[in-house]
């Protein structure tokens, strides 16, 4: 048996704890059965199914996620993490041993609920939907637990790079980063379908709904949701494994992160299907499919840029090696780099899509193709400015406050800047990417990026010459 799994089972799923959990679950079901005694079989089935689903939700999706997140944080708190990092276990064994070992009891209780729920569902709706429901539920639990675990590992890395002890609060940054990516993907997906299919209600899992149009295929919505959950659960496990590799001092290349971004963009863009006949704008025929798909992909890649910028530790050593590949060290590409490169590609895709539209559809008196291109360039320049701001704060002398400082600065730059310039006509383009005055936006963003980037580079040089040690 995987030693890490075995250790976790010794600690977390001792016979006494397992017995208490079994008694609690049995008690809940007995109470429901007694309360529904004499009811129609269908009502009893629905009641037991609902209680089973609730038990699964509470155990696997709440308790289990908490345990998964704590599985690393508690090792650090108890000062056993260094010993584990020195172990001979490979990163994958450590990942699954810890992930499923720490949550073993939550899984046992959750599955006790899920089995009853699935049986009730099968009784009410047939075996096919019940099977899909079971797979979707398990995939959702794995997705959330692995995401919580990965978030905790992100917090651990950041805490170490910032010279502080990891705490549960440290995992918050990782949680927000992962939630941000998942949320952005979900929003991009929902928006695509909202605008081009007809409503986010289609996304509601396991209900009768219109088939999902995914690229050119028409897919049952429940099947689509289930397969999507399975795929993202797989990616969450990959994320946990890749982060565990780093904890065990192995080095990661950019391949898996790039592949995930491409998959997420593929998944999102595939749902951006116009549900109407080719429209007519200004008398010209307009088919926005390519534009919608590139736009959805750009949104996913942009989310990846910001998530990577905050999730990766402020590690100046790694950045120096990246900047100086001739140093002989294995080059470690920052996660921002591939996301940014893909964003540029997606923006180019958007621009090419716009240029491919009929002239009458895009060239009106106020808004032409050149402006669209300049606007896209300005938006990218603002992304660069934002990365410089994030680097400036996170590589400062107080890295513990770097994330907060960066978020505050961005809020002020965008919010306050827009507020101040809102009554000054085109001056608002100084603070925001403006489609009305994209050239001003572009120049403003580039100047800001250069200035703040220069300041950030000074901080990247580090504490050489300092005689004061931590």
């Amino acid at each position, binding site marked *: 048996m995987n030693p890490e799994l075995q250790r976790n089972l010794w600690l977390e799923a001792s016979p006494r704890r397992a017995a208490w959990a079994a008694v609690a679950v049995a008690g809940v079901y007995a109470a429901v059965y007694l309360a529904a005694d004499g009811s129609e079989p269908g009502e009893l089935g629905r009641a037991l199914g609902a209680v089973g689903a609730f038990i699964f939700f509470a155990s696997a999706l709440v308790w289990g996620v908490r345990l998964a997140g704590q599985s690393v944080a508690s090792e650090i708190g108890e000062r056993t993490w260094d010993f584990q990092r020195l172990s001979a276990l490979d990163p994958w064994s450590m990942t699954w041993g810890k992930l499923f070992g720490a949550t073993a009891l939550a899984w046992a209780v959750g599955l006790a609920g899920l089995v009853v729920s699935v049986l009730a569902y099968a009784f009410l709706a047939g075996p096919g939907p019940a099977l899909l429901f079971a797979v979707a539920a398990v995939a959702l639990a794995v997705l959330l637990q692995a995401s919580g675990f990965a978030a905790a590992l992100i917090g651990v890395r950041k805490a170490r790079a910032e010279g502080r002890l990891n705490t549960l609060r440290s995992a918050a940054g990782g949680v927000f980063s992962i939630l941000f990516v998942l949320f952005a993907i979900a929003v991009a997906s929902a928006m695509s379908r909202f605008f081009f299919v007809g409503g986010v209600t289609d996304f509601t899992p396991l209900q009768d709904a219109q088939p999902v149009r995914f690229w050119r295929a028409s897919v049952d919505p429940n099947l689509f949701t289930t397969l999507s959950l399975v795929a993202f659960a797989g990616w969450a496990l990959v994320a946990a494994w890749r982060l565990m590799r780093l904890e065990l001092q192995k080095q990661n290349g950019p391949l898996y992160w790039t592949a995930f971004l491409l998959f997420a963009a593929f998944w999102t863009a595939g749902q951006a299907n116009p549900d109407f006949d080719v429209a007519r704008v200004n008398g010209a025929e307009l088919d926005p499919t390519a534009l919608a798909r590139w736009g959805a992909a750009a949104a996913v890649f942009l989310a990846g840029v910001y998530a990577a910028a905050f999730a990766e530790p*402020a590690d100046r*050593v790694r950045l120096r090696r990246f900047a100086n590949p001739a140093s002989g060290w294995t080059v470690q590409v920052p996660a921002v780099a591939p996301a940014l490169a893909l964003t540029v590609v997606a923006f180019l895709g958007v621009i090419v899509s716009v240029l491919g539209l009929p002239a009458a559809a895009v060239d009106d008196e106020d808004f032409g193709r050149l402006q669209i291109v300049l606007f896209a360039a300005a938006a990218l320049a603002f992304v660069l400015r934002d990365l410089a701001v994030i680097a400036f704060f996170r590589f400062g002398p107080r890295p513990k406050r770097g994330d907060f400082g960066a978020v505050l600065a961005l809020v002020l730059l965008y919010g306050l800047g827009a507020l101040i310039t809102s009554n000054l006509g085109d001056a608002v383009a100084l603070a925001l990417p403006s489609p009305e005055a994209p050239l001003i936006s572009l120049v403003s963003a580039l100047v800001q990026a250069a200035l703040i980037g220069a300041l950030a580079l000074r901080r990247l040089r580090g*504490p050489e010459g300092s*005689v004061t*040690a931590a």
Partner: protein
Amino acid sequence: MIEVTDLIYDYPAARAVHGISFSVRPGAVLAMVGPNGAGKTTLLRCMAALDTPTSGRIRIAGLDTQEDPRGVHALLGYLPDFFGLYDELSVRRSLIYAARSRGVPAARAGAAAEAAARRVDLHDRLETRAGELSRGLRQRLAIACTLVHGPRVLLLDEPASGLDPEARRALSDLVTSLSGEGITLVVSSHILAELEDYSTDMLMIRDGRISGGGVVSAGLAAETAHAHFVIAHPRPDLRETVARLGVTVEQATDLTATVAIPGGPDQEAAVLAQLIGAGLPVRSFAPARRTLEQTYLEEAGRSPATPSKGAAA
């Protein structure tokens, strides 16, 4: 066995290790000494391939800590200054987990656990929960966990901190025993007395830099020991008499003298025989090797570290 070259380590706001280079020979027990915050723990963590230095190289038994960190992990044991144990696990299960997680096959894990427990004298407490052990016994269990896979190098960070005299003696005996088995040890401490009994070499770290002459003999090898002797009757020419025997006199009165005796116990016996043979009525002869503290202070005086405003972790 251990080679450290131009090692630099930066914390976000400060440099903790400033270009340190040294090497440790196989089988040595290196006492890494220095005040609190000198950078000892940082250096040990880099040597254990747990932290990545800003620049520089560390090789353990020929393996680079950054190119093959997992290989380095496999051949060393590291006991941090603040170690943790799984309090709810018994000693046996703690050691079995340690063995299995360090690559010992399942079939041999039980035997390896018992052997490790025996080495640290915990074999009679195998079923006791780790949380019920005293501070000294917990220390022994933690050391047993680092030993269970048979490491070639052992890094101990402040191992005697918080131990009572009896537990310190047991620790000293254990380190001596491990050294006798050919394990290379690096022991960090700011309490020199605890290192006195077992260290063969010493490295002084101060403000993230090597202070003194790098790795030096800790005094146990007795390359330059001393002997103090007393004669029964005053001899005004005592210094000259002893000097004529070819022995270096460090100080002398009419009744007593301190002489330098390089070479260890055999040479000490030879000098004593010379003194008696020269007709000196020796009534007391006491060899006295340099203490680690003397060595430390001499090395500190020889090449003090650059003054700094703060201290390294």
